[in-house]
């Protein structure tokens, strides 16, 4: 093949992804004096972070002075069923308050307490009201703040540029290859360090709150470059999404609704969550309605409402109610805030929810209950990183945000992602810049790697074949939905893997119409490769873990098993084959262990 022409950009650090994690990383790397390129596949400011609603978790102690990092740490670990990387959870809890205050100094306007501090709201699994928020559009506030701060820091931004492959020089990462969406031209980035901040993998499922961007690109780029992935079996199905009308099925209904007093009911009007309190959370969960309702205003003397159990528990409970025939007309359950809070309060606290139901479903949530059900929302698994530096197992490659693994263990608590983004985004930018500064050697971009990436890129436009990329994507989503969903078992998972093999073959025959100018058919075809990769990783890891824990439930292994609580499932590519292993979790030091022995 003739040598492809392409443009090249050189930086000390490139950051792939411009959501909360990527923006924060780029800002920090620039502050360290590095030359930074920030790459994103949508326009700047449109990343998934913009959709986050409920808030950002940080033990500021503004509403409950009793709150501190130890309590936040403990909640996070317990929510993650103790499978979290303890050091990440510790750093996260310790540094989140500073990161929130920093956002405020950069212009973010969080809702206020009466004395002018940042107000905090209740969320599932958090012992105290802990989420700094702006109504129910916290992610928008966060991304605009970082975006408008970032554009004045001398960062070069490459928008609508899709990275397809990382480049390596020996063991080290030395850049990336991608294409411009606007004209399909190939672009090469040469850099000493690469930060992955590409977000999640939700597009592998049929019903998801995630956008077209969530095709697991960062996970795949890392895997292909030789890095380890961990915890890929842990996928969060958030319990409350719209189920009706069909076209909006999967649109998130923020946990803030329950944090602000909303409660789940079945078609008999029962608050069924009281029937699903697991042993693990019994001591801290109210077992009667009166106590649960008192808890909203008096947290000292009452235990929390089971409506706010961690997400995996609530999602399973809803699934069980629907299965038992106690669901709502469109296959969900009811979420009622209208009988519990005044209309004004609802409109002020949950403006987007009010708007969303009114405009898209014709439902006035100040008068009627919502119909809600679970959908894929978040992936806990991701690139295995060193807690302090976010370095992956490949030199020069760093990862932060949803595409990094370890922080959330088997299940993420609401609000802990936005804080994760800024805590580890900052660390990624810092350590990538330091790595680049200290790296004395020369890096060379290998022509052959660029050529091969370019060939793969252009193939779907050139080959003869009859497969439609959208059809393959839809078939993949259907398989994952039915076979690798909330409740799994060995037979289904094996069937899923067999189907994925067939889909991989079909994907090789995808042919797209049209040219290279802004061609979504072509883009969808190219994203199939990473989508299939993460789907397989998730299914393989789910098959490996023979227990139920957090965001991984096996009906053939319904119990949590202590032995499995000591290991991560690790995936890596060696000689083109996906290898699975179980590797021990880092051991938590005694002083932190002691936090779990205290009376709650």
């Amino acid at each position: 093949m003739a040598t492809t022409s392409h443009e090249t950009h050189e930086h000390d650090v490139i950051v792939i992804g411009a959501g909360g994690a990527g923006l924060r990383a780029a800002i920090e790397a620039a502050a360290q004096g590095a030359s930074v390129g920030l790459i994103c596949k949508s326009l700047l400011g449109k990343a998934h972070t913009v959709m986050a609603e409920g808030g950002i978790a940080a033990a500021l102690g503004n509403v409950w002075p009793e709150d501190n990092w130890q309590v936040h740490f403990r909640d996070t670990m317990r929510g993650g069923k103790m499978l979290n990387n303890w050091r990440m959870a510790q750093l996260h809890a310790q540094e989140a308050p500073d990161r929130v205050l920093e956002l405020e100094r950069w212009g973010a306007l969080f809702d206020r307490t009466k004395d002018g501090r940042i107000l905090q709201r209740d969320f599932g699994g958090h012992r105290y009201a802990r989420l700094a928020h702006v109504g129910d559009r916290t992610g928008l506030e966060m991304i605009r703040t970082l975006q408008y701060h970032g554009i004045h820091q001398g960062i070069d931004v490459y928008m609508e540029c899709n990275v397809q492959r990382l480049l390596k020089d020996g063991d080290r990462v030395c850049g990336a290859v991608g294409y411009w969406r606007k004209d399909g031209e190939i672009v090469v980035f040469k850099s000493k360090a690469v930060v992955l901040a590409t977000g999640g993998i939700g597009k592998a499922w049929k019903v998801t709150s995630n956008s077209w961007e969530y095709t697991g690109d960062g996970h795949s780029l890392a895997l292909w470059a030789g890095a380890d992935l961990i915890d890929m079996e842990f996928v969060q199905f958030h319990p409350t999404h719209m189920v009706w009308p069909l076209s909006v099925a999967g649109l998130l209904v923020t946990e803030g609704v329950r944090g602000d007093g909303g409660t789940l009911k079945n078609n008999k009007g029962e608050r069924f969550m009281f029937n699903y309190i697991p042993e693990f959370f019994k001591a801290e969960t109210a077992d009667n309605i009166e106590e649960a309702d008192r808890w909203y205003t008096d947290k000292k003397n009452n235990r929390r409402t089971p409506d706010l159990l961690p997400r995996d528990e609530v999602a399973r409970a809803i699934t069980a109610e629907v299965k038992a025939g106690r669901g709502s007309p469109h296959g969900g359950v009811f979420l009622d805030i209208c009988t519990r809070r005044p209309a004004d309060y609802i409109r002020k606290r949950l403006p987007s929810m009010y708007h969303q139901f009114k405009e898209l479903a014709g439902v006035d949530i100040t008068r009627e209950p919502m119909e809600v059900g679970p959908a894929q929302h978040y992936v806990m698994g991701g690139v295995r990183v060193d807690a302090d530096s976010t370095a992956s197992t490949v030199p020069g490659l760093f990862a932060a945000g949803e595409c990094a693994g370890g922080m959330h263990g088997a299940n993420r608590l609401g609000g802990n992602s936005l804080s994760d983004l800024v805590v580890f985004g900052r660390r990624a930018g810092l350590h990538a810049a330091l790595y680049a500064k200290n790296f004395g050697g020369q890096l060379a971009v290998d022509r052959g790697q660029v050529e091969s990436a370019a060939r793969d890129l252009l193939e779907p436009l050139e080959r003869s074949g009859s497969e439609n990329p959208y059809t393959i994507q839809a078939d993949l989503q259907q398989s994952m939905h039915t076979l690798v969903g909330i409740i799994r078992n060995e037979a289904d998972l094996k069937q899923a893997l067999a189907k994925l093999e067939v889909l991989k073959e079909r994907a090789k025959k995808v042919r797209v119409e049209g040219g290279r100018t802004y061609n979504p058919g072509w883009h969808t075809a190219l994203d199939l490769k990473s989508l299939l990769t993460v789907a397989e990783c998730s299914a393989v890891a789910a098959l490996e873990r023979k227990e139920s824990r957090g965001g991984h439930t096996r009906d053939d292994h319904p119990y949590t098993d202590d032995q499995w609580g000591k290991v991560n499932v690790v995936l890596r590519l060696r000689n083109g084959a996906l290898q699975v292993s179980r590797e021990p979790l880092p051991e938590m030091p005694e002083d932190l262990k002691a936090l779990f022995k205290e009376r709650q």
Partner: protein
Amino acid sequence: MATTFTLRLFRGDAKGGTFRDYPVESEEGMVVLDLVHRVQASQAPDLACRWNCKAGKCGSCSAEVNGQPRLMCMTRMDLFQPGETISIAPIRTFPIIRDLVTDVSYNYVKAKQVPPLRLKPPEADGTYRMMQEDIDRIQEFHKCIECFLCQDVCHVIRDHEEKKTSFAGPRFFIKIAGLDMHPLDTVDRSRFMKDAAGIGLCNITKCCTEVCPEHIHITDNGIIPLKERLADEMDPVVWLLRKFRGVKPKTNA
């Protein structure tokens, strides 16, 4: 119940193009963007359009639907008569890249020109306090999802290519207003507002406010107070007083 509509979609690029008709079925609760996706999946895989959230939160899917600037993901099909032909064109003011996708880089250039926040020193205890009533009005501006529909309809940008260099547009007037009314900010942006942002070119037609999907009172709460402040700019004492006394915003409908 499925109903069939005809989408009359602009197909073309910078060199030119035409409208083409695509019959497509709609089911209960669907929005225009769903139908565009259906066309993509079955009839025109290379149909270019932008979207991300499908929930009116990211501001990516702006287009002109039957001539009206709108978010495709928030435009419900039951707004139309069954069987109707619905035309969908790219937003008019910005150069076409392909089909429904336009080059909105103008907005990113303007964004960068706005002088950023510079905070006053913290209180004695090292922290800042802000009262909810002092930030209510700015929180309204912060609802902006950067769909650029207001930029699209503003005649100064739409009809006067030559003014683009010296005019920021309504999106950035409320950006400036948000910074300017920030209780902790210390920057005087009046020179910028007048010269680089060209606020004087705005003649308060309110077209921007009418199309804003976030129902931000762009003119009443943003542009007009800024213009009033500029009128006082010769008198820095008045400016300071106004800044710290605050201007009462109109509340959202």
